[in-house]
C-alpha cells in the first residue's frame, strides 16, 4: 500500500515537473546564443572561448548549421547572433521586419572562396570562366582543363550555405548548377571529400585550406590573406554577424560583437586564416 502511494505520488510529481517546465520563462540573461554559417563558425568559436575565459559567468553557445538557418534563427528570435557568410536576402529582411526584428550587419572578417582539388591533380590554375564551366557541366573531364583523362567529380556546398550563395553570385552569375553536382553540408565535409577523391573539385573558405588539399589559383591569383585583402583574388566576400538592432552598449552582447575590432580579435581572425577588417 505504501509502495503504491509512493509510486503514484512520484508519478504525479514527475508529471507536474514536466508541466512546470512548459511554463519556463525565456532565455537566460547570461547567455549568448550564436547560430549560422560553418565558415564563420571557427571565428565565433574562438571569440566565444576568449570571451568566456575573461567572463566565466557568461555562457556562449555556438551552432554551425549554415547561413540560411542562422538567418531563420534570428528572424524567429531563437538566437542573439546569426553568423552569415553572405548578406541577408530581401525575403529574409522583410520576414525579419515583419516579426519586429531589425537585422544589423557587422562585418567581422573578409574571406576568399578557394577552389580546392586533390593534391595529385596536375591542374594548377582555372579561370573564372572554366570554373563556371565545370559547375555548369560544360567541362566534365579534367583533360579539357589540361589534366589527365578522368571525369571531374564536382562538389558544391548545399543551397542553405552562404558560401554557396556567394559562389553562385560571383562565379556562376546566377546560372543553375549541373545535375551531377554533389552537395555537402559544411566546409569541412567538402574538404574531406576532395581530400579522399583524386578527381574531385570543391570550394571552401580561406580558413579551411590546409596541407591535405591543393588550392588552385584563379585567374593566376593564389587565394590567401594578402591577395584577398588587396582585392586581387576574384572570389572574395565579407563575413557577417547579424544582431537584432544594435546591441546596447555595455552589454556582453555588445562586447562580443565588437571583439573583431580589437587587436586580439584581429589576431584571432588572422590565426584562423581569414582576413581581419581594418584599414589595409
Amino acid at each position, binding site marked *: 500500500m505504501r509502495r503504491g502511494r509512493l509510486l503514484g505520488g512520484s*508519478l504525479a510529481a514527475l508529471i507536474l515537473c514536466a508541466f512546470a517546465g512548459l511554463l519556463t520563462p525565456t532565455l537566460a540573461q547570461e547567455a549568448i546564443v550564436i547560430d549560422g554559417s560553418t565558415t564563420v563558425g571557427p571565428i565565433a568559436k574562438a571569440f566565444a572561448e576568449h570571451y568566456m575565459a575573461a567572463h566565466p559567468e557568461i555562457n556562449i553557445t555556438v551552432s554551425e548549421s549554415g547561413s540560411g538557418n542562422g538567418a531563420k*534563427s534570428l528572424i524567429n528570435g531563437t538566437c542573439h547572433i546569426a553568423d552569415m557568410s553572405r548578406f541577408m536576402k530581401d525575403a529574409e529582411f522583410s520576414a525579419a521586419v515583419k516579426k519586429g526584428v531589425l537585422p544589423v550587419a557587422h562585418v567581422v572578417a573578409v574571406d576568399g572562396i578557394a577552389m580546392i582539388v586533390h593534391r*595529385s591533380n596536375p591542374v594548377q590554375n582555372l579561370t573564372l570562366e572554366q570554373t563556371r564551366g565545370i559547375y555548369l557541366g560544360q567541362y566534365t573531364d579534367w583533360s579539357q582543363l589540361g589534366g589527365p583523362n578522368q571525369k571531374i567529380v564536382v562538389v558544391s556546398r548545399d543551397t542553405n550555405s552562404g558560401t554557396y550563395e556567394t559562389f553562385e553570385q560571383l562565379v556562376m552569375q546566377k546560372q543553375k548548377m549541373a545535375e551531377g553536382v554533389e552537395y555537402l553540408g559544411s566546409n569541412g*565535409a567538402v574538404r574531406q571529400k576532395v581530400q579522399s577523391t583524386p578527381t574531385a573539385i570543391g570550394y571552401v573558405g580561406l580558413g579551411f585550406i590546409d596541407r591535405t588539399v591543393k588550392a588552385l589559383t584563379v585567374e593566376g591569383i593564389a587565394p590567401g590573406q594578402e591577395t584577398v585583402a588587396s582585392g586581387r583574388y576574384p572570389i572574395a566576400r565579407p563575413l557577417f554577424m547579424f544582431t537584432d538592432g544594435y546591441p546596447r552598449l555595455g552589454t556582453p552582447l555588445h562586447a562580443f560583437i565588437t571583439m573583431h575590432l580589437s587587436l586580439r580579435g584581429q589576431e584571432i581572425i588572422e590565426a584562423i586564416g581569414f582576413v581581419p577588417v581594418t584599414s589595409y
Partner: protein
Amino acid sequence: MQLGTRRLLDRAFSGLGFISIGLMAASLLVILTPIFVRGFGAFVFQGTIEFRRMQLERFERGDRDEIEAELTTARRARQPVYEMLDAFDTEMGEMGFLERREYEGPREELEDALRELLGPRPEDPVPVMARDQYGATRWDRAREKIDLVLYRTEYDYSDRTRMGVPVSVPRVEDFRGTALEALFDYVELHATEMLRPRWTLYLRFLTDHSIDAHFFGGIWPEVLGTLYLTLGAMIFALPMGVVSAIYLVEYAGEGRLISLLRTFISTLAGVPSIVFGLFGLAFFINTLKITESKSLLAGSLTLATLVLPTVIRASEEAIRSVPTTYREAALSLGASKWRAIVTVILPASLPGILTGVVISMGRAAGETAPIIFTAAVSVGKALDFAKVKFWETLSEATPALPWNIYNLATEHEAVDEIRHVQFGMVFTLVMLVLILNATAIFLRARISKKLRG
C-alpha cells in the same frame, strides 16, 4: 528419401544460421575493435613535455618545478635546431637576391613544420590561439610532424594521362651545403630528447572542458549534456509511457478507436528520428516557445517523444504478461482496480518495463537527429545545475556526444589534428550506453529475483 531431403534442408538451415551469426560477430568486431583501441588512445597515450606544459599552464596540474626543469632540459636539446635556423638566416642575408628568393619558400615551410612539432620559439611572442601555443602534445602526432619536418610530398605530374604520383622528397635536399643540412639528422636523432614522450594516463579527458575547440582538454560538457538529455527524456517518457500502457491494457476496451490508437503508436515507433527533430523545433520551440532557442528542456522533450512509443509498447507487453491469476487474486481480496494495478500488477511487470526503459535510454543517448535543432551546439559550457536558477540551466543549449562526434568528424576546421578526440568521444558514448544498459539489466535481475521470492 524424403527423410534425407528433410535432414539436408535442416542442416542447410542451421548452417546458414551459424554463418549469419559468425558474420554478425565479425562485423561487430570490425566495428568495435578500432573504436576501443583508438578510443582508449584518448585516455592512455605517450604524452610529450608539451602535453605536460599544457596541463600545467591550463589546468595547473603536475609538479611545477619538475615540469619546468624538464622543459629546460628539452629546450636545451632544441637549442641547436634554432641555432642552425639562425645561422642559415645569416647565410641567407649574405646571398644574392635571386638565390635568397629560392630558399625563402622551403625555409618558411620548414619553420612551420618545426613550429607544429616543437611549438613557438620560447623567445617569440605567445600566439593568440591555444593551438599555436604548444607543439605536438602526443607522441603519435609528433611522429607525423617529424615526418613533415624531414620529408615533403611532391607530386610527379610528368605522365599527363594520369593523376600525379606522390613522391617523398627529403627536405635535406633543399638545403644541401647550407647551415641547415645538419638539422635534419639532428631532429631525427634527438626527437625524443626534444619532446620527452612518456606514457600518460589522462583520465581527466572525461572531466576536462575543451580548450580551443577541442584541440586540447577533454569532453566533459558533451558527456554531461548527453547524460542530462537522456535523463530528461526518461523523466518525461517514463511516466507518460507507463500511464498510457496502463490505460491501454487495463481500461481501454477493444473498440475501433483503440485499435487505431495502437496502430498510431506502432507507426510512431517507426518514424525517422529527423522527423522528430523537426517536430521538436516546430512544436516545442517555435510554437509553444517553451524556451527561446535550443535548450536542454526542448531536447529532452523531443527525445521523450521519440522514445515514448518504445516505452509504451514495452510497458504494455510487460503489463499484459502478468498472469490473470494475480489480478483475480487481488480483486478477490477486495482491492479496487486501481489498487490492484498499483500494488500487484505494476510491481510484477516492473522488470519488463525496465527493459523497455533500458532500450529507450540507449537510443536517447545515441540519437543525433532529434537534438540537432532542439538542443545541441558545437561549443558551449558544461551545464551546471548548482547555479542559482534551475530553470535557467534547463533553458540553455548544450553540447552532446552524438552531435559533437558528427561535428568534429565533418565540420571542424582541423579534423585531422584531433582524430584522437573524436575516437575518445565515440568510445565514451559506447561505454556510456553499455554502462547504462548493464546497470539496468542488473537492476532488472535484482527486482525480478526479489519479486520471485
